[in-house]
């Protein structure tokens, strides 16, 4: 089971879109995916047009949760909206407060991927998500502020890494809102590649209207415009992630073991 958190400190870089699209992509490819909305804004829930009384907020506090099946092989835990914001206060006093999510989902099995869609801030919920996940995907849109947010996120992850006694967390950057017509996009991408090198997905999510339209119809990009550029990009992102997994599994030799 592979656990991803989609996270960056900058808002509007395509976190939710990436989370939803990637989750759906993976589920379409036949993997069982659990998508957890860690954002009180409930963007994911809105995208799917669902609502559940017991969401992540309840999971963290009482351990009780509804898991909705939103598509074939795609399962979803709602954030709980405002309740989630309050949870943070409640958790504040608890033991192992940063490991609540990990503890709650300790026995989660039968699922190939877990994807957490985080909110653009450093709060306890996000730290919980970080403590639970093994890899973080940081969407970066092609502008300076976004890059700053990504760097910030990367440093936070590194910081948490030293605190976390459980296991290493790695992260990868996903360039989004790439517009080949704008010079800044080229500049930023080059810059990011220089700065993060290997840690950037080869897939680039380009600026695409279909991506933005999809949530309006409670659809993912694959459903809304299966042949759009957005669907193409997210297909490749899905493939890249699957490919990483395959290569990891297939050639243990190739990976620098230990």
């Amino acid at each position, binding site marked *: 089971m592979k656990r991803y958190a989609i996270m960056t400190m900058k808002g509007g870089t395509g976190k939710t879109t990436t989370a939803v699209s990637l989750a759906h992509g993976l589920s379409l490819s036949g993997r069982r995916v659990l998508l957890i909305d860690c954002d009180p804004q409930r963007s994911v829930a809105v995208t799917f047009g669902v609502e559940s009384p017991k969401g992540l907020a309840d999971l963290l506090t009482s351990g009780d949760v509804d898991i909705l099946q939103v598509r074939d092989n795609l399962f979803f835990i709602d954030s709980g909206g405002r309740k989630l914001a309050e949870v943070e206060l409640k958790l504040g006093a608890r033991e192992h407060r940063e490991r609540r999510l990990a503890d709650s989902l300790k026995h989660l*099995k039968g699922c190939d991927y877990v994807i957490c869609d985080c909110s653009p801030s450093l709060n306890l919920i996000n730290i919980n998500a970080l403590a639970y996940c093994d890899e973080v995907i940081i969407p970066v849109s092609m502008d300076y502020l976004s890059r700053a947010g990504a760097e910030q996120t990367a440093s936070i992850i590194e910081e948490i890494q030293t605190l976390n006694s459980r296991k290493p967390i790695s992260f990868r950057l996903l360039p989004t809102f790439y517009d080949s017509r704008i010079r800044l996009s080229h500049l930023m991408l080059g810059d990011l590649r220089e700065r993060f090198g290997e840690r950037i997905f080869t897939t680039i999510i380009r600026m695409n209207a279909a991506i933005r339209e999809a949530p309006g119809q409670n*659809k*993912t990009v*694959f*459903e809304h415009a299966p042949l759009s550029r957005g669907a193409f990009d997210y297909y490749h992102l899905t493939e890249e992630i699957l490919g990483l997994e395959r290569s990891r599994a297939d050639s*243990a030799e190739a990976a620098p073991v230990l």
Partner: protein
Amino acid sequence: MKKKDFLTDRETFHLEVPADENNLSEVRDFIAAICDRAGFSKSETANTKLAVDEACTNIIKHAYRDKVGDVRIDVQAEPGKVEINIFDRGEPFDWSKVKEPDLDLYVEMGKKGGLGIYLMNRLMDTLSYSAAPGGNRLYMAKSSTASGAQRPLFASLMRPRWTSTLRFKFALRATLGLFGLIVFLWSILFYRQTQEVRGRYAQAWLQRKAVAENIATASENALGEDQYSVERTRLSDTFIKQIKKYPETRYIRLVDRDGIVIASSDVDELLSAYDIPAEAGSLTKEGASRTVQMPGVGAVREFHQPVYRAGTERANAEPIGRIVTGVSIAMVVEDLVDPRPMMTLLLVGVFAAGVALIYLLIAVFVRPIQALTEGVRAIGEGSLNDEIKIEGPKEIGEIARAFNEITSKFRAAQKNVVEQERLQKEMQVAQEIQHTLLPKRVPEIGGYDIASYYKAAKEVGGDYYDFVKVDEDTLGVVVADVSGKGVPGSLVMTMIRTALRMEARGNYSAAEVMSRMNDFVTEDMKKGMFVTIFYSILDSKNRIISYASAGHNPMILYRAETDETYFLNPRGFPVGISLPDDTLFRRSIDVEKIKLKKDDMLVIYTDGVTEAMNVNRDQYGEERLIQLIKASGKLSPQEFIDRLSEAIKEFTGDMPQNDDITVVAIKEKLMADEVLYGIRKKLLDLVEIQGMPVAEACRMMKVSPSTYYRYKKRVVEMGDRGLQDKTLRIEDDIKRVSLEQRKGILEIIKKNPKYGAKKIADLFNEEKEEKERLTQAIVYDELKRIRLNTYDLRLEYLRRNKIITDEQFKALLAAQVRAEPDAFKLAAGDGIASISDEPEIAEAPAPRPARAARQAKLVPTGARDRNVAHKTEYAVGEGRAVEVTSEELEGGIVVLRVKGHLDSSSVGELEGILESVYEYGYRKIIVDLKDVTYISSGGWGIFTGRVKLLREGEGDVVLAGMSSEVYDIYELLGFQEIIMQFPDVEAAVGYVTLSLVEREKRLEEVSRRRAALKPLEVRQASESPGAPEILDVPGDETPWTALKIEAGTVGERGEITILYLDGVIDTVSCVKLRSVLDSFVDRGIVKLVVDMSRVEYVSSSGWGVFASRIKDIRAREGDFKIFGMDEEVHSIFHMLGFDSIMRSFGVLSEAIENFKVPSPAGDGYEDAIEAEALGESVQPIPEGMAGAKRVEPGLAIGVAKATDGPKGIIVLSIGGAVDSSTSDELESRLEQCLAENPAHLVLDLSDMVYISSSGWGIVVKYMQKLGASGGALALAGMNSTILKIFRDLGFEPLIPHFGTLERALEELRLPKNLGEAVRKGKIVPAGAESRPRKDAPVPDAPVEQADAGQDLASALLGKADIIPLEPLKTVKEEEKVIFIDFKQRTDVREDKDHRIKKLGWEEYGKKLSESEKNPKRRKR
């Protein structure tokens, strides 16, 4: 505090109430009000109230006996004192009957009341009573201890009257001073100015006079001239001018001799007659003056200046006229400004300013003092948490600082006190429990008079005595001393009590009872603890006392007939030592029997009596005890006991005792003969007069029928006398030497060490009467008993008593061995001659330990070639009871030189040192007791507790250089068979360098010799053929031992100190930890690493200690690291947020590493051997975590590959703790290793602190996985704790394990060996014997087809993934495990678009690529 109207003067109050109990409250209120006004403190008020209440109650109850009457109370009160007279008209009371009540009795009987007078006496300062016909008067007086109102601490500072304030006093004094100064100044100035003014006044007049004179001179001509001459006119003008010039001059006139005004400033006057005043009538040359009143002008001074004819000689000439000048005095005076009022005013002003300034200054100075006062007052009122703000001038600041220091110390002290109180409370409870266990009273037992005394030490003691009814006529008396004190001691005591009560009933053999007790308790007793017991059985029918001793102090027999005392101490081990041979205790314990004669007394006591110490640490000692017994032996037991307790009290004074004092004294009340006579008589009566069948009568009287017949016969032969004939009694005279005789013998030995038993007996019997003579046999017996039966033992005795020096001793010994074997033989031969069945110990004397050891020294030192790098010095603070220094000798021998008292307070010290010496790997320990004056029973325990452990490691603990006092106890406890002792260290060294087998032999010999030395009469009991082996006295750590703290420095990095903690850190033990930490900080040891791996529990106060000291330590550039915390402790550590204050580590090496400057990550570990130390080096970076730099605290995993071998061996060094938080990491790491497809996997656990059961589960899982692929998983370097768990879990046959990593690698590298190992069943192919573990049950035997050649690894992996699903069903509600059940989902939402589904993912991908290439075709 509300303002009270305190009494200022003596006042009288009255109260008269009817004698009724209902009025008591009124009386109380009355008294309370007065006391309050008299400024009594609360408690004093309450006390007075109570006393008056008591008095009135007595009057109502006893004087009036509930009849009608009045009580009058007169109170005379003044500040701080109250005098109370209580009058009544009831029955008078006989005051003489009053005596001090026995409080103990009250307490015991629970009697209430009757303490009234005692109470009044105690509560009031004076108390007197007078009874008169008119009524009775009870007078009492009470003064408040602090005169005036008794107020809390610093009271005078709190409510000062303003006149006594510092400010007032300062101001008053300064003002007075200033006033004096000003007055002084003023008087001087005033005097001077008065003088000056006077001078100026005179001068002014002189001036006027001079003017007048001038005018006179000028007028000379005018007078001579004509009446209307110009001269005259001009003169008048001149006068007028003059007046204008000097306005004070009112008039000037020239009068001639006839009194006619010739010229005048006033023209109207001219030629008028001037009435020459009488007083100025005759004018001298000097002129005259007078004062006249002039209307409108006031006083005018008139100068009359003679005018002479021009050119005449003035001396004789008559003046021809006179100038009269009138000067207004007022105007002259006006001119002369008087400075004095001004000056006075000025000085008054200065004074006023000065006073103001003084007040101002004082206010400035006093303010900080006031602030200080406020602070101190706050402290006085009990708020210790306030700090006084330090400001103001330096001195005040200093005071404030001092106060703050005091407060903080006080606060700390208070905290301590609270803690100690708690501890004391616990102790008290233990003590109470213990008291309930002690017998309430001495049971009646026919014919014996028994008394007991028990006094608990300040701690809960370990003494115990009890009386047990063996049957109706038989009483067991037990006196025991548990080697430990406190709660463990009393627990053991309880055990002993239970065991005794269980075993004693109906059991007439003291030895048997003791053996059974030993069997009963030994298992459950803490190792190193033991109990010495003296158990005697009093048979009231047969008048025989049998007794046995388990290493207890001897019972003292006082024989009144001869006035001699005897030590009765049969052989026996202390109870509770696990001896190697189950029957050894039983075999070794002896029973002796005795009959008491008239006035004989038996005294059983514990070492608390003889070791009672006074302030100088002198012990009460046996000598004094015996003296006392002799002096008061003829008293009744109770009287004797009273005397003894008094004597001890007197001796010890106020010194708190460390050990309980227990004494039981037994005396024959009836003479045995009388009792027996009575019994026999009754028996004969029953049979012959009442006609009872013999058998029944005998049963009733509990005698054998043969007795009946025997006495019947005697009666027939001798008549009634036959029943009491003493010749029939069993001869039970003590066959041993009394203490007095022994002294005589010792004296002889001291003079003639060569003498054997016969010569001694002869010498002794000289000048002795027949009765006191000793036979040779008895003397020999005694010599054996006191171990002086051979020449060299006697020499040794002399040396010990400092009669001969060591050199002499050696010389004599050498001489004896070399050339004088005869003398030696003679000495021993005597014994043989008289006691034929004695084994020939004299013929083949075992070489004395000392000698043997010296010979043994020639043997090359032990094969063990330890190169112990560090020599540790334990500097123990001065002034403590015990001082220990250690010295390391070659061959891994360490000598601990102990100095001082080893009592319960100081034993811990030595114990800790012994332990740490052990931890450092020393196994051969010699304890030099040369300078030890005293060892308590607890002290002995620490040696016995260690012997086994040491011997297992080829080591030993040996005692050396015991003084004779210490030796006596050593012998008494029967430790010769357990621990070897030598006269000096040298000999001891010789001994420990021998091999274990040889040492065992030696010990065996000693024990055999001791066995042979048993008293004659009970020899048959212990003719033991089998020699005892090493005694099984393993050291053990029970969880309840309090905190043990040891310290050591790290090898070459000497600056880092490691603190090993063991046990629990709670409110009690944290005090110790704190003091240790403080002493370290004080000594400048600030780089501390704390080993918590053996700490089971840390209370909040324990954490507090760490937190409170870390600041100090960091301030001194040190630091404080904790490592090896277990899961629980760490979770609390984490919960408290301590991980933000200090760093914790999994293993020691990490913690130490952390002190150094972080060094760059070292890599390059090609070979597995090098990987041993990997626990502390940096792990390689696995994929996707390039940023990881440090191993997380808690678990450190290092990995290395062995390069050789077919597929290679991977070594995983796992350090730290594997618990639920780190097991995932271990698992993932193992998974990664497995992915390498190694031949074998070795887990090096040498740095492992802790591994939880889930950790073991993981190990087993991977063992199976590896086994499936033909490899093996081996463990290496487990420490004993982990190994124990490993074995307990039953993994030993499953997983091969090796002592060291090298060994493991060696074994695994040789495939042949491995195969063998597998064949032997050491390494089991995966799954064949897998045991489902409790916490992770494998539902359906997971690996049944393990040998089917399938891809087992993946099968296992699959299974492993399934496993967690199973426990879900059993998981409790509250665990809330999330898992997705795909079938049960009902809220499935249909996909919005099925196009992709229909296409399939791959196809869709292709289509997408197409559309990307062909943007035009892109459609919805």
